[in-house]
């Protein structure tokens, strides 16, 4: 049987770990990990755990669901037709069969869509959950790499797995697939997500022992490599994936070096003021953390096995495994000629998940959800943000699905406060809001020394985010402060006031919006013929009226 826990909701009450201790485990104060594919003999205990969860975060597959079965028969019901005949007999195609795609499909059926539903996925697997891949699966505490997501209902979809979408023709409303086939649609949901950014030197990246971590296969390979007692593991980049891999290495007793080009771990997500604390955590746990350091070369032996890494601090390390944790690339290439507003930044859409075309006009029938969607955030000055969090994939998929089958006046905006979590070195780090929007941060509750604290982030005198280290039960209080743009720093008296709650600079790098790099040409004179077109520098295309700028483009391509 299959289960999934919404760890965005989880507050670490541990009721599940009491009642089904073979399936759910608490690490440290509050970090939950679980076996996503437990034995059926555990069913009663898992039901107890799910019922007891104070925030109802545990979802298990209905008992009559067949393990791993895909149900390809589209069903046709009789349901009151609120969305016109489309809702009854329309055709919806979802590109991307990960959590956003699956959740959207379920939601479409919940909303009464009885037409034909097709899910297209490049990976050969049915939808699976990724967060465990860098945590319990890698550590070997969950027995399987198979983290297939539970089916909360029969979605009656046609599945096209193991075949990538190659292009989109909006004029004919057809999707082209890698096997040469085409699928017509009335409405389309784009949820093709991200892939890991590879190590930029292709020869070095091809060495055995050099890998990235994004897919189920990546996790299986890395787990095997870690089980082979490597002399040392090198983690390149201290974002969340890098930090979690380092944490698992220490859990397994393996020597690990983390090379981070920035001043501290997690700077892009949390800023350097809090990132430094995450760095202390690494050092206390025996990680050889090197900040401000780049990896200049990865060297292999005659068999093509990684043996050595050369760092910009002048040292060299004997390593057998190197994990490139350099962030991600959005899977937009297949949309290059679609006429949609897509680029390295993702696919731009409105707050209702409707895609923009290159002109900036909103489309009616193409929707976007998940990591790839770049949507305006009214709470953050209407900035367009792509939010790469698990919870966002779900909430955005639900809004997109709802809007796909709803009339104009019934549509919803996606205004969910972004949230994420990570578990490293037994500490749960949990965030609400957008910390990177902040200029200042103040540690208001708890103690940094104990690694139990709550930090509030502010921008120009208002609260924009809060981050908890092992204090997540308090975040429910801070979320409304973000929604209501409450004053920063907080002035009220409260329990467990930290000894020094003065705001300090949050320490984010001033980031230019990636969309500023978009190259667009506009043609036509009369209002009815003015058109914008995105150029595609990666394909060697240059804007027709401007000279090529090879320098700028090279820069854009480097990681």
């Amino acid at each position, binding site marked *: 049987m299959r289960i999934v826990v919404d760890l965005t909701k989880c507050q670490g009450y541990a009721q599940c770990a009491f009642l089904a201790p073979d399936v759910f485990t*608490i690490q440290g104060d509050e970090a939950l990990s679980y076996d996503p594919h437990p034995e059926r003999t555990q069913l009663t205990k898992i039901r107890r755990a799910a019922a007891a969860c104070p925030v109802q975060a545990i979802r298990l597959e209905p008992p009559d669901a067949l393990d791993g079965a895909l149900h390809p028969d589209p069903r046709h019901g009789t349901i009151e037709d609120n969305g016109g005949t489309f809702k009854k007999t329309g055709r919806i195609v979802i590109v991307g069969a990960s959590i956003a795609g699956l959740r959207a499909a379920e939601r479409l059926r919940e909303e009464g869509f009885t037409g034909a539903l097709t899910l297209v996925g490049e990976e050969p697997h049915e939808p699976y959950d990724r967060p465990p891949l860098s945590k319990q699966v890698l550590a070997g505490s969950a027995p399987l790499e198979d983290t297939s997501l539970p089916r909360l209902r029969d979605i009656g979809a046609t599945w096209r797995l193991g075949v990538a979408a190659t292009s989109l023709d909006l004029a004919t409303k057809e999707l082209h697939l890698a096997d040469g086939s085409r699928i017509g649609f009335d409405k389309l949901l784009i949820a093709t997500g991200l892939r890991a950014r590879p190590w930029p030197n292709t020869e070095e990246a091809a060495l055995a022992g050099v890998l990235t971590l994004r897919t189920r296969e990546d996790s299986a390979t890395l787990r095997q490599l870690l089980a082979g007692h490597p002399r040392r593991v090198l983690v390149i980049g201290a974002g969340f994936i890098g930090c979690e891999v380092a944490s698992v290495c220490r859990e397994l007793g393996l020597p690990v070096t983390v090379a981070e080009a920035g001043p501290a771990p997690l700077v892009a997500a949390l800023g350097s003021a809090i990132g430094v604390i995450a760095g202390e955590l690494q050092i206390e746990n025996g990680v050889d953390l090197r900040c401000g350091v780049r990896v200049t070369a990865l060297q292999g032996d005659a068999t093509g096995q990684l043996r050595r890494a050369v760092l910009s601090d002048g040292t060299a390390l004997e390593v057998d495994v190197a994990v490139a944790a350099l962030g991600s690339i959005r899977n937009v290439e297949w949309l290059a000629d679609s006429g949609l507003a897509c680029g390295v930044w993702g696919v731009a859409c409105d707050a209702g998940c409707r895609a923009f075309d290159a002109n900036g006009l909103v489309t009616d029938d193409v929707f976007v959800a998940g990591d790839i969607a770049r949507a305006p955030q009214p709470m953050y000055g209407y900035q367009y943000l792509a939010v790469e969090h698990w919870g966002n994939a779900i909430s955005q998929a639900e809004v997109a699905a709802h809007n796909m089958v709803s009339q104009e006046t019934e549509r919803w905006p996606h205004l969910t406060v972004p949230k994420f979590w990570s578990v490293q070195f037994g500490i749960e780090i949990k965030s609400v809001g957008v910390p990177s929007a902040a200029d200042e941060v103040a540690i208001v509750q708890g103690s940094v020394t104990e690694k139990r604290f709550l930090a509030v982030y502010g921008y120009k005198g208002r609260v924009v985010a809060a981050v908890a280290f092992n204090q997540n039960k308090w975040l429910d*209080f801070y979320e409304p402060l973000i929604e209501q743009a409450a004053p920063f720093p907080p002035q*009220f008296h409260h*329990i467990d006031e930290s000894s020094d709650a003065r705001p300090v600079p949050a320490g984010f790098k001033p980031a230019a919006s990636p969309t500023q790099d978009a190259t667009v040409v506009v043609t036509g004179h009369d209002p009815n013929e003015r058109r914008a077109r995105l150029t595609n520098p990666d394909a060697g295309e240059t804007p027709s009226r401007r000279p090529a700028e090879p320098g700028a483009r090279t820069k854009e391509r480097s990681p």
Partner: protein
Amino acid sequence: MTQDSIWEQILDYSNRANPYPFYAELRRTPVARLQDGAYLVSGYAEIASLLHDPRVSSDISHNPVAADAGAGEDGDGPGMTPTFLSMDPPDHDKFRRITMRHFGPPTTPGRVAGMEPRMTEIVTELIDKMEGSTRVDVVDDLAYPLPVTIICELLGVAPGDEHRFRTWVDLALQSTDPGLDPETQQKKRAEAGKELRAFMEELVEAHRKAPGNDLLSALATDDGPEGRMPPEQLVSTGLLLLIAGHETTVNLISNGALTLLRHPHELQRLREDPDLVIPMVEELLRYEPPVHFVPFRTTLDDIDIAGTTIPAGASLTLVLAAGNRDPAHVTDPDCFMPERPDNQHLGFGGGIHLCFGAPLARLEAQIALTAFARRLENPRLVSDPPPYRPSPFLRGPSHLPIDIDGIR
């Protein structure tokens, strides 16, 4: 009715059997100020929000009302060292962790689940004893002896000692009866507190000298990474676990049996499908919670909520039983629906003070109610409503006599 008079009706013993219409009245003002300056919170959203609000303190020494009443909660009383129940972080977190080390995750994850066979055994014995009877008392014959046996075994209290503390616990609980004048309340509480403290001191000392495989021995001898609990605090924590560890569960089981007898269709369904008890106990915790309110929380700053500003330094009572039936939170709140989807309730409170023993209570209630449904032949209520115990906040029947045709 003013909020004060609604509250008086709730506290009035004559309404113990059905306080819910008054809770509905109370909810019309989800955050209400009483004459004495204390606040009653009865809306689900407002209670849930205050349970997660760091401007609300559980430190009883801050509380103006508790100070006047000379009262404490459960095991805490005059002269009693506070337990984590009435502390704020970081002390609360530390002492709760120290206690949890021997009871649950992350250090002792299997302890409660591992007690399931023993719970089943006790329940089987208790029901076997009903053989030949046509009238039994659900409270005395099932709902009381199960949790008291379990908590005694868990803590390391000898079975023969049960009668010793029962008298004092009853006395301590009687002292929360609002019908008594404050002086009598205080006197009863002091008397009971003194006896209970002496009992626990003796017990802790015995376990320190000759430790067994029980919670008190572990707390008395184990030096975890955060050190040992100071002796006086161990005594009050031991009493808290002992009293809160069974009094509430007695109510959960007897309220459960009563509710099932009032809903014979659900009782029949439970007979046929034992796993139905799992969501059913959650619904019971919502519908007939064993703890009706959380008293003596204190605001550390002004709090704007539900159109009201609660000033700093005010005493709050969070009326969990009213919040659980808030129609803004659940549909058909007065219906008992065992399979209510997404059943988030306040039966165990919430936030950092969420009931320490919740998993134990759940498992005991699940096992007791399953056996109650399966083994009792044709159970019928002798009187409805049954007689109730005096306490308005630990609310449940004092006796629940039923007629049966036998056991199977």
